[in-house]
């Protein structure tokens, strides 16, 4: 089901998975995990008609919703209806007879659109047939299938929040439902692929609000700023060369950040703090929260053994850092320039190969739709937790240093926001276990924890230089995601096919 409806957030809007045991009329009996429906009334007149709704309404974020029922037995007269209805519809009726109720009936093959009289629609159906009902949540149209054959649109402009429903009227009628737990007879995926293609065409045919030709420039700028942001210096350089764009930051500054990020991601937090203080003196002083977080991480890394207290920057690091300091100062005015000054779009820089980008890819991946380039760099980080460094707890001297460091941290905690203190307490809890790696709080030791800190540090450095703390590309991706969520809440079915991850 998840594969069928990837855009549905089941926390908010659960999918129908069975018939409701409560939301049904007395003459309906359920069995087989509430998927089989049988009739148990007298079946004399249409007053004995009886329906059941599914457990949940169809979420709009399905885009296209589909379910199938198999007629196990047509019973006495085969007065069976398959369809959709709203929550407040009377269940002592067949689907389609009342307002907000829509059905396709087996005895005459007619479709009933909120009316007691049907319209000629399709063939009749009976024992052994599989009837499918599809709801297009983009345009609110509904179609049926019989034994996998599309019968054409039956209803249009249906309201949102409809439930799958079936209704029976004579004894012996038995129907099995398939809400997607089994493969469908009808090719729903094909139908979805078409809707996805249409949605994509719609999006790509939207006119660019600004002047023609600017689109490419803006896209290139977004890509470039993304690369710069994460310090993919070589890729950024190549990209800039191909597109004729200029880079919004001095290369050396970019490399500095890259260096710091590498240290953080390697777990060498202490070195990272030192380097940062050296290169960007004001940052950590002005941002105690960040410093605190870094130190907490350092504490964790010390537990894991990746970091120690002895900070001994290698000589070449020191000299390089000194050099960079000057560069950093010099670059300030360059960076202050508005990005808007840069235009001249040239050809797209396709197939940029990344030279030596050692930083692991950020968890938030770029989607190539926005970039038109293949500039997703970053080989996977080599480090894993495979070779666990021997715990610091085994070394009494180091352990003592650790405790001392922790005390210092405790003091620092006085200066930060209350909620941040929690992470320190969690970090301390590592010490409560003889083998932190196998403790319930071992999750903190995972290297992925470095990424968040790294990201925050990187943003802080950039912000200190009046550059955006988040690259525009990530902002727009996040923005689209948010819009999709809004669309889902506002019953706009197209959101199912507009996900940036899925569109290609």
């Amino acid at each position, binding site marked *: 089901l998840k594969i069928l409806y990837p855009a549905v957030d089941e926390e908010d809007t659960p999918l129908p998975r069975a018939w409701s045991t409560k939301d049904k009329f007395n003459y309906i009996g359920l069995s087989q995990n509430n998927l089989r429906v049988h009739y148990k009334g007298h079946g004399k007149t249409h007053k004995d008609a009886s329906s059941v709704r599914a457990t949940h309404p169809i979420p709009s974020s399905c885009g296209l919703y589909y379910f199938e029922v198999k007629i196990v037995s047509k019973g006495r007269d085969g007065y069976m209806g398959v369809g959709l209805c709203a929550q407040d519809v009377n269940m002592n009726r067949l689907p389609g007879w009342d307002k907000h109720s829509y059905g396709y009936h087996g005895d005459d093959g007619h479709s009933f659109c909120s009316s007691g009289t049907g319209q000629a629609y399709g063939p009749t159906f009976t024992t052994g047939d599989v009837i499918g009902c599809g709801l297009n949540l983009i345009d609110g149209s509904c179609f049926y299938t*019989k034994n996998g054959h599309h019968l054409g649109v039956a209803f249009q402009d249906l309201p949102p929040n409809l439930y799958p429903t079936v209704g029976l009227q004579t004894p012996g009628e038995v129907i099995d439902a398939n809400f997607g737990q089994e493969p469908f007879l009808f090719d729903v995926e094909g139908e979805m692929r078409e809707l996805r*293609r249409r949605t994509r065409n719609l999006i790509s045919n939207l006119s660019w609000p600004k002047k023609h030709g600017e689109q490419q420039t803006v896209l290139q700028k977004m890509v470039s700023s993304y690369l710069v942001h994460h310090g993919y210096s070589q890729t950024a350089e190549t990209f800039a060369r191909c597109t004729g764009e200029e880079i919004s930051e001095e290369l050396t500054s970019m490399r500095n950040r890259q260096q710091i990020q590498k240290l953080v991601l390697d777990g060498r937090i202490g070195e990272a703090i030192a380097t940062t203080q050296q290169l960007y003196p004001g940052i950590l002083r002005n941002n105690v929260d960040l410093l605190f977080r870094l130190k907490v991480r350092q504490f964790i890394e010390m537990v894991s053994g990746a970091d120690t207290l002895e900070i001994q920057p290698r000589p070449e690091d020191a000299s390089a850092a000194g050099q960079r300091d000057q560069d950093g100062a010099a670059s300030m005015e360059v960076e202050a320039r508005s990005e808007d000054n840069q235009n001249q779009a040239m050809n797209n820089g396709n197939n940029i190969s990344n030279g030596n980008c050692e930083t692991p890819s950020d968890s938030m991946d770029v989607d190539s739709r926005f970039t038109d380039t293949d500039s997703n760099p970053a080989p996977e980080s080599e480090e894993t937790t495979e070779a666990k460094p021997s715990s610091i707890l085994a070394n009494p001297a180091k352990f003592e240093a650790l405790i001392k460091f922790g005390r210092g941290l405790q003091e620092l905690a006085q200066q930060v926001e209350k909620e941040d203190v929690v992470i320190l307490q969690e970090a301390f809890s590592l010490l409560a276990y003889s083998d932190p790696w196998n403790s319930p709080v071992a999750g903190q030791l995972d290297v992925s924890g470095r990424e968040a800190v790294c990201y925050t540090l990187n943003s802080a450095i950039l912000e200190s230089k009046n550059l955006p703390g988040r690259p525009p590309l990530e902002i727009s991706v996040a923005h689209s995601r948010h819009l999709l969520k809004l669309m889902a809440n506002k019953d706009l079915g197209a959101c199912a096919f507009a996900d940036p991850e899925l569109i290609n």
Partner: protein
Amino acid sequence: MVCGNMEVEVPRSTWDKLYDPQPEKVAIAVKSLKNCIIGSKKQKEQIVEQGLLARLVNLLVEPDINPRVKTNVVQIFGSISKGSELTAKSLSDAGVVKILLNGLVNTEPQLTEACLLSLVSIFDSKETSIEVIYSDPAIISHLLSLMPHSTNSSVAVCRLLTKGCESLDHQNILLNSGTPKSICEVLSSPVPVAQLCALQCLAAMVYKNENAAHVYLSTSAQGKSLMGHIVFYTGREHQEEIQLEASRILTYMYRCGVFEEDGLIVFQVLPCLVRLCKKEERVVNRILAAETLAYLIEIDVELQQIAAISNHLICTTASFLRWEPDHRQKASGMSRVQMNKLTQQLEKEADQAKQLRKAAFHVFASLSANDEEIRKRLIETEPVVQSVVGALQDSDEDVVMSAIRCLHSLSRSVQLLRTTFQDHTVWEPLMKILSSPASKVESVLVASSTLCNLLLDFSPSKEKILDSGAVELLCELTRKYDPSLRLNGVWGLMNLSFNSEQRIKSQIMTTLGTDQVFRLLSDTEIQVVMKTLGLLRNLLSNEKHHIDTITSLYGKQLMQAVVFILESENSHEVKEQALCMLANIANGDTSKKLIVDNEDVLKKLKSYMLHNNTNLQTAAVVCIQNLIWREEEGSCDRQAKLKDIGVFNILNQLKTAEDSVLKEKVKMALDQASM
């Protein structure tokens, strides 16, 4: 673009530089010439009138000319071919096609590509025959070798080959040159237009060509099978045209019978074609989809039934008949060019409307070929019947033809014959088509088949059709060269004579003439012989006086005919008919004498009673039974005579026959024997 009033006569002298001895100046002149004629029909015509083609050809042939200039020249040719029919014709007159084909063999990729593109454009005009690409086998293989060079090249070659696939011969030449494999490679291209052109070419090659279908099944390139590609492109993530072409290929292959249906046709191809008929789709796609669909389901009842319930197909197709282009411009206040454009547009739309109607009739004909239920639904759908009947009088032959096909399928319905056809006097246009000397064999054939159905006994139209000269018309058909026409002629007469009045029977006999009957009985087509015997049997049925009237007039010839058939080399089925005819004669009063007095026939009857084929035995016994029927006058004499020659002995022998029908008949015959 500002057009229309901007046409300025460019003096010939402008182009004198084309003849300049300095190559640079020539190059500049060529370039400005190219720019000058783009988009201007008038300029193109002027170039031709000014006789510049010869010089351009000259530039192309000369070895020393810079390839860039040559490329420009080639592009000029391409541009000229897009002008009027006149300019296109002048190109082929100047021998440009040949030169361009030669031009494909050069080392400059840009020039080669330009040649290809111009060739495509030249062959697009009606004036130029594509046949020339087959003049030298090397051309095709060279074209194929150009495909991998660029997307443009593969697109151009695919288009050329599609265009060049006009006959079975062409298809086979292309097949044998390895075209499927080359195209299979193109199908890996990510460019939609390349995929489309490649698929179009594949469709053209496999249409009604079983050989090609087999080749497709086994072709693969770069580790991917051709079939895999084709099936992939039926997927709905591709644009409609691509889905359509892929479905078209699979349809043609399926009709060639090269693969077993395992859901691909029913769940992929058929729904795709049905979907593409819908009104949201582009008109050209709708036409092609409908035609392909009609072909796909033509002979398969199951597919017809599925199609009939799929996606409102009947309604959708009926809407083809009411199609109108959505935009109508006002004619006032338009410039001449705009008027011209509008006229062209209108012509195009009229043609599309025609194509749509034709396609719709084809779909209806296929849908209603076998299933009465579907026929009923069609009749109930407005405006199917009126349109079909109306289209019979259309000025366009193709439309008439498709309408007759549709009518033919519909005429298989008993109910329709009784009701709708009666109301719509469908026979009138049919008779007109049949009697018009201008009608094509094909349409006469389908029209006469339809007429046969209309002449069935229960059809109320029968009388009216007779009044409008059906007998003469059908007799005329029996004299046609085409065996199917002769068959339809006799068949119609047979239907007509069934349970009919003496008056009609006599009319048929006089009009047809005994000579013609004999000719038909010795026809090479067994079906014609069978139907002729059927006709004779119908003539010799019903009232006894019918039989006697006929035999009194033609008795001798009829007996000859029976003997003729019985002595012929024909199959048991034919002979059975002859014996049945004899039984029919024996059913008359005076007619009986004809048989009893004919020793030869009696001998034959006796021998057939002992034949090893039960059907023949039964037929002979029935004949005897009719002869000895007790209540009839002279029964005793006949019984005596038959007993004399040993018939009764044989009957007694047959009492123990295994076949129940034969046994029954023997028993009945013996019951009649009074002695």
